[in-house]
Structure formats: C-alpha cells, structure tokens
C-alpha cells in the first residue's frame, strides 16, 4: 500500500519557481493497477519520480506499507521503474540487463541465473538472451525493460508511459501482456499515460491530473460516467456541456432545471454547489434523438456517418452545440435530415453535475 499525503514539489526558487505537484494525496492499494492520467506537463512523471526517489518533494509524506521512504535513497526503496526511454544498459546483453538488479542485491549466482531465465520466459525473450540491447527492436527493448524491473520482485512497479513509443498493434499486444504480468506477479503497478483509452482499458483505478493536482480518482467506469470536473469530462471521451439551474441536492440525486424549463434528475457531485447555476455533462451516446418538445430542442446541423455509429450535431435553442451518438443498425434508413427541428432526451441520472 502506497500512502501519499500532501505531496508538493516546487522546482527552482524565487521568480523561476515552478510548482509541479500541488498537495497530492492518494492511497494506492496492494496489487492494484493504478493509472496516472493527464495532459503533458501535468506532473505525472514528477509524481512517479518522487515515489522512485529521483525527485525530492518539497513537503508531504510518502509511505510504502507503513515505511516512510522519503528519507531513503533510490537504491533503498522497494520499487523499480520502467523508464519511458527504457534506459537499457547499452554495454550489456539482454540477460545481463535483466540480472543487473539481482546482482546489485548480491543474490547468489545460481539464483540470479534461474530468475533471469524465468523472466526471459515471462516476456518471451529467451531466444534473444545473448543479444546486445542495441540489436533488438523497440518492442523487444520494452519487454527487456519490463523484465529488468520485475526481476527483483519489487513491491511496486512504476511505469512511465512505457508503451508510448510502440506502434498501434504492438501497443495493444503489450497492454494485454502488461495486464497479464500484473495479474501473475501480484505486484502493484503505478502506470503513467496520457492516452485515455489505454487508461480506461487497463486500470483498476485512475487518477486524473492537471496542473500538478489530482482532480479525480476512481474506477474507469466512474471516471467516464461521472466526471467530477469539466476538465475530467473533457479530457476523457467526448462530452456535451449544458448549463442548468440546480434546485436541490439529496445524496447522489440532484434536481435540475434545463434552459427549456424542463426539470430532470441528475447525479450530484461531492464538494459541488447545492443550488444556483451549474454545468452538467451528458455523454453523446447517453442521449437520444426524439421529436421536438423534449428536454432540449434544437436544429439538426450535421449528420456524420462513422460506420459503427452516426453522430448528430444539433444547434440547441440555447445556442450551443450538442452531439448525439447513435449506434447503427443494419440497413436502417436515415429518418432525419439536416435542418429538421429535433429534440434531445436522456434518462434521469445520466446527466452529471460538475464541480465549480
């Protein structure tokens, strides 16, 4: 279990001071696949490097299984890192790279050999064990980097965008392989990515970061269906934003009134307002196209056919754009045409009230 609390990191001082992490508090459970997701420069790497010991946080605490590790040097921490650039030792073979951590722990030769063998099999690199690392492909280097970090059986494995350099197909393969490895080894994975799809498909929980802060932590479904902030809703998937009047909040249920005057139940957000003007988020696939006189009315602006589904772009009467995504049925004829007056409706509880 990794407990991070009130972690802040400021680089530099005076005028050039830059705070890359702001009061980060998060608990990562044993054997969890935990993902840090956020745009470039939001502090993902800085947080990861704080855990690894390459960044010295300005304030805050960091414990692994109750042990304070902030005072420890990187080589004394029970964590291993898969670097974004792999950082394989160019003067060593594949086997020597994988065995490096074990040798540095002064394990007996025979044990090193058998673990290296086991790791080579795990990442399917046995055939290339004696190659120099400059003589293997990018995907293979990636697997060696993974095996090297896994070999000492750390409590926690930190992975900094390990798949970003791979092409699409290999990336998909490695995603599955990573999940399998995490499952088989039972090691806690802290995984960094800025690819939302990768985060949604692989993670047990996701922390969405922006500007050095963690905005929301939750399972993939929760993050996707119930984003707490505009940034989160916008960063993950496509979303429609609609302004509304919040009438009352009772637990998870919020009563809202839309600009059309229609009232509906939405999902409340913790730490948000309890009345007044708010923004709600509705996913394009959660809304349906109906006849006028619905929750929101508007004019059909554009119809875009995508094969699996069709996107309807609607200019609402409140002068904003709303997109509805509808899954296509075989040989269904298009019943609407551009310029038609249409209605937008969605079920109670689908709309998510956002913080701020």
């Amino acid at each position: 279990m990794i407990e991070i609390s009130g972690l802040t990191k400021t680089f530099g001082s005076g005028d050039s001071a830059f705070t890359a992490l702001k009061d980060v508090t998060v608990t990562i459970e044993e054997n969890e696949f935990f993902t840090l997701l956020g745009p470039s420069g939001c502090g993902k790497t800085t947080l990861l490097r704080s855990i690894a010991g390459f960044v010295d946080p300005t304030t805050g605490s960091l414990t692994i299984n109750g042990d304070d590790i902030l005072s420890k040097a990187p080589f004394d921490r029970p964590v291993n890192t898969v670097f974004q650039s792999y950082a394989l030792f160019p003067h060593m073979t594949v086997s020597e790279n994988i065995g490096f951590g074990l040798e540095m722990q002064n394990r007996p030769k025979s044990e090193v050999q058998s673990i290296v063998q086991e790791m080579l099999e795990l990442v399917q690199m046995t055939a290339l064990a004696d190659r120099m690392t400059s003589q293997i492909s990018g995907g293979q280097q990636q697997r060696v980097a993974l095996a090297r970090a896994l070999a000492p059986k750390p409590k926690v494995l930190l992975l900094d965008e390990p798949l970003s350099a791979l092409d699409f197909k290999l990336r998909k393969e490695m995603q599955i392989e990573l999940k399998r490895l995490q499952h088989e080894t039972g090691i806690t994975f802290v995984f960094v990515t800025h690819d939302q799809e990768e985060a949604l498909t692989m993670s047990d929980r996701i922390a969405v970061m922006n500007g050095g802060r963690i905005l929301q932590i939750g399972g993939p479904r929760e993050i996707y269906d119930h984003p707490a902030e505009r940034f989160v809703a916008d960063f993950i998937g496509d979303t429609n934003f609609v302004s509304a009047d919040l009438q009352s909040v009772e637990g998870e249920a919020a009563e809202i009134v839309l600009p059309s005057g229609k009232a509906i139940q939405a999902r409340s957000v913790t730490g948000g307002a309890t009345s007044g003007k708010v923004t709600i988020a509705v996913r394009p696939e959660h809304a349906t196209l109906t006849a006028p006189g619905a929750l929101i009315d508007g004019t059909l602006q554009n119809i875009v056919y995508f094969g699996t589904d069709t996107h309807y772009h609607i200019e609402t009467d409140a002068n904003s754009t709303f997109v509805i995504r509808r899954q296509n049925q075989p040989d269904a004829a298009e019943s609407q045409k551009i310029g038609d007056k249409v209605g937008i409706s969605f079920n109670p509880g689908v709309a998510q009230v956002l913080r701020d």
Partner: protein
Amino acid sequence: MSSETQSSRNRWLLLSPALAILTLAAAGPLLIVVVYSFLTPGDYGGVIWQFSTDAWFNVVAERDFFDETIGLSDAHLSIFWRSVRLSLLTTIVAFLVGFPTAYFIATRPENQRNIWMLLIMVPFWTNLLIRTFAVMEIIRNEGVINSVLVGVGLVDQPIQMLFTDFAVTLGMFYVYLPLMVLPIYASMERMDFSLVEAAFDLYATRWRVLRKVIFPIVKPGVVAGSILVFIPSLGAYVTPRVLGGGKNLMMGNLIELQFGQGRNWPLGAALSITLLAIVMVALIFYVRSAGTEETPHG
C-alpha cells in the same frame, strides 16, 4: 562492367590529395629519419653518406672506452625507463583528476557546461613555456608553496621539489590534463543519464553505478584521453628540460641532445625511431587490453 573500374579509379583520384599529404608530411620525413639512422655522423653535425649500424648499436649498448668490452648503455636505458614511468604516472594522475572533473562538468546544467569547459581549456591555449614556468614559480625553493610552508613554520628548510621527477610529472600532468578531460567529457555528455537513474533504481550503490555503468560506457573516452596524454608525455621536451633541470632527462631531451651538442644525427634518428616504436608497442598493447570487453559507441 567498366563503370566499376571507373568508380574505383575515381575513388583513388578523390583520395589522392590526402594520400599526397600523408606521403609528404608523414611517410617522407619518417623515411629520411630511418635512412639517417643508418649513416655515419659528420664531425660538425649532419651526416656522412656512409652506411653504419653504430647508431643503432649505441641506442641500447656501449663499448667500454678502455677495454672495448660491450655492455648495456645504462644512461640510455634509464632515460627510456624514466620516460615510460613518468608518462604512465602522468596518465594515471591525469585520469584520476580528469575523470571526476569531466563528470562534474557533464552533470552541470547545460548552459553552465561550456563555461566550465572554457576554464579547462584556457591554460591549454596559453604558451607551453609560460605554463611550465608558472609551475616552476609555484614549486621552486623560493616559490609559492615553500614560502608559505616556511612562513607558517611547518618546515625549516624549503622542500626540494623543482628538478625532481615529481616536478616533471606535475608539469606534464598540468599541461596535458585538458587532453584527458576533453574526450572523457565528450563521451560522458553523450551518455544517457537516465542509465544512471536506472542503475540506482536497481539497487546499485553510487560506487557500483560508477564502476558498472558510467565507466564502461565512457571507456572509449578514457582510452582516447589516456592515449592523448601518454604519447606527448613520452616525447615531452620542454617540461622535463625546464622542471627536471639537467639531470632528469627524458627521451625528447636525449634526442635533442644528439642533434645539438652531441653532433650525432644518426644516433638522434635511431633514438627517434626507438621512441616511435615504444609508442606503437604501448598503443597496441593498450588498445588490445582496453578493447577486450565490448565497448559501445565505437
């Protein structure tokens, strides 16, 4: 096809300026030196065109003045030995100081590195004699160090540093240090420092990171730096002359002596070739032993 012979002819044509320079500047003079070493010395310098192997004989041996017995030339051999010994020592000290220096510079923020390199290089652009005399000023009996030591009362008598092997080594170390720092720094700057982090991450202590990761990766730079320091040290002339006084001769001085006061050009030529041979043997030996392990970056 004729295009192949054409292209190979073109290649020779393109190479010819380089070949011409090599022939004129390297092979030609070398050949002259070899030829001179097999001639007879003239009475007032120069050579007489008469074949003789006396010069080569005199490189390592001498005929006793009185009873004509043949023995090893102790004077020459001890000078050879001192040259090799002091050059090795200079190279080792230059490495011990140069490696941390290069590491220090390579780990500074990027915009500061050039300033540090400049500081290392400035002495190198200064005249060799001036630098050597500066060292002399520091270590002579009335120099900076001894004045302080005597002044403070740490010693009664000035410590004799000038005109010793120590002085020669110190001088050569000071003069050739940039030649060690530069190539090591170059390979260190190219090194990916995330490798160092990776090693730390994998439980390597600082010393082991240095030995297992940094050193093997910058080894080509260390090899180059050692060669660049060792070779000119072996042939050094000014430094041993100024700092070693008349006593602590090195090969460069011995050779100069034959062409000057000694008036024995053939012996000078033979000694020059001996120096060259020592360099070649040392180089082959060194590169062989350094190259046994796989070195990256070529």
